[in-house]
């Protein structure tokens, strides 16, 4: 068995999600190759070569891989798929966009967002927003899989895999990236953060959201998240959203501030190691999943908490 892991990167460095995905490949067992496709992506490829468990890094470097479009990456992966028993990518927006295209071109099913590996052909994945877990077995010759990154601890570095260049496939010309607006932040990414401070509608406004939560997040080195209600109210952009319709996170510590705990939010954070809830409503459903609940006025206690953890 040989497994191909599709690296997620920004050419200069690997995204943390790649490390979790290689970890899932290690669980499946067999030789592991990593594909790094990009533009001047040598630095990312060198990082991939250092991941424990990786045998070979295959690099496809061409201008038309810069935007990481599914059309171009999909064609490249399919052209290099021969001999692989499994093709894995992280279940990030990039992986989710790309891998079903690969699966359909190979005429196989895709197994979405696995959270556990039972055997080389059997995997566990959440359905109904995590309200049920399905164990599924694939009879396809190639298993095409996206990996829920929070379910697998990242692999360590210190390896030294061989780096091998592969030829690029032709530019499909089907799509062009016009612009990309990434939220600039000094804070860790939501998906990779050890601590997340998350705010809900209880904060009342975007100003309050930033003034109250940022000092606490700064003290804890935390990422900032939000409930869908806070996003819908316009407090913060959608890429802050944690939940079924946003990001799935599982940090060491999740601090929910002014979040009531709708099912769709819980689906995105209930696998966090320790959950703290701060809410003035003692009956808020968030307290049913919180390890530590503080029933209090958040405007009073959040500044106190920021002070106390400093």
């Amino acid at each position, binding site marked *: 068995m040989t497994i191909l892991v599709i690296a997620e990167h920004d050419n200069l460095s690997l995204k943390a999600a790649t490390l979790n995905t290689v970890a899932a490949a290690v669980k499946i067992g067999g030789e592991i190759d990593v594909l790094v496709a990009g533009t001047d992506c040598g630095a990312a490829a060198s990082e991939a070569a250092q991941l424990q468990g990786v045998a070979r890094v295959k690099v496809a470097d061409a201008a038309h891989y810069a935007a990481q479009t599914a059309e171009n990456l999909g064609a490249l992966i399919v052209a290099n798929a021969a001999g692989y028993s499994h093709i894995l990518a992280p279940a990030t927006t990039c992986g989710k966009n790309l891998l*079903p*295209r*690969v699966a359909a071109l190979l005429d196989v099913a895709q197994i*979405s967002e696995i959270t556990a590996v039972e055997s080389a052909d059997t995997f566990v994945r959440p359905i109904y927003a995590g309200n049920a877990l399905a*164990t599924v077995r694939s009879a396809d010759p190639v298993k095409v899989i996206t990996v829920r990154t929070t379910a697998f601890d990242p692999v360590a570095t210190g390896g030294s895999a061989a780096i091998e260049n592969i030829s690029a496939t032709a530019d499909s010309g089907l799509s062009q990236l016009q*612009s990309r*607006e990434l939220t600039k932040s000094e804070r860790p990414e939501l998906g990779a953060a050890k*601590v997340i401070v998350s705010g809900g509608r209880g904060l009342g406004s975007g100003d309050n959201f930033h003034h109250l939560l940022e000092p606490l997040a700064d003290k804890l080195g935390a990422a900032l998240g939000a409930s869908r209600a806070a996003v819908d109210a316009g407090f913060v952009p959608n890429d802050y959203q944690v939940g079924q319709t946003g990001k799935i996170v599982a940090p060491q510590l999740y601090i929910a501030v002014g979040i009531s705990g709708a099912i769709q939010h819980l689906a995105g954070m209930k696998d966090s190691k320790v959950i703290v809830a701060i809410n003035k409503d003692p009956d808020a459903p968030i307290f049913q999943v919180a390890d530590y609940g503080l029933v209090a006025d958040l405007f009073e206690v959040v500044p106190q908490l920021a002070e106390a953890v400093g």
Partner: protein
Amino acid sequence: MLGRLSNSTSEIIETTEKEMFVKILVPVKRVIDYNVKVRVKADGTGVDLANVKMSMNPFDEIAVEEAVRLREAGTATEVIAVSCGLAACQETLRTAMAIGADRGILVESDADLQPLAVAKLLKALCDREQPQLVICGKQAIDDDANQTAQMLAALTGWSQATFASKVVIADGKANVTREIDGGLETLQVALPAVISADLRLNEPRYATLPNIMKAKKKPLDTVTPADLGVDVAPRLATVKVSEPSGRSAGIKVADVAELVNKLRNEAKVI
């Protein structure tokens, strides 16, 4: 592109419109209503669907709304709703037509239709209907697969723009703003294309009673996977379905001092 030079604005618009003949296909799925608490069956074979309220997948509703808005704006000429599954999916198609879809196609099957099979059925319908645009919901809230749009784009060889929060059609191309990790990006894709709708694309309208009545009279064709020449045999076998391990409520702390103490000394996370 303009076919000829003209100094009359109305002629220019006419010429442009003729070349912007866009037929839109919108696949809609019948799923457990999003408000229903899902229960896993005791024998572990699936979730309990008996006597449970079923509705259109919420992301598909957004897709229908977007297609109907494009037709209302004069960008699209026809909106065709498609559903694959049991005869009861007719209800879902009537809902789509009450929102404003012009007609419906049911691909009737009682098989376990997995995303690859649905994508193949939709590919066959694209060959028949020749739409310039397919707008799907980004994922169904039952199997949470998030695959069908991308698979359909692969099978048709079309471009794809997933997780759309804004769609602008002009000059035979679609400019689609996509929700990606860390922000937004705008892709320009050639038509025909497959787009998948994210939550922020629009807020679907409520179907009014007159429109619900009107929808009952709109054409609804039924075909079978065999008619379309598609093998829908499932590729994944469900070994079992189980309840996730629950998380129990912890303790309430009295104040910030106690909370910090617990986090430092008991949970050891700060």
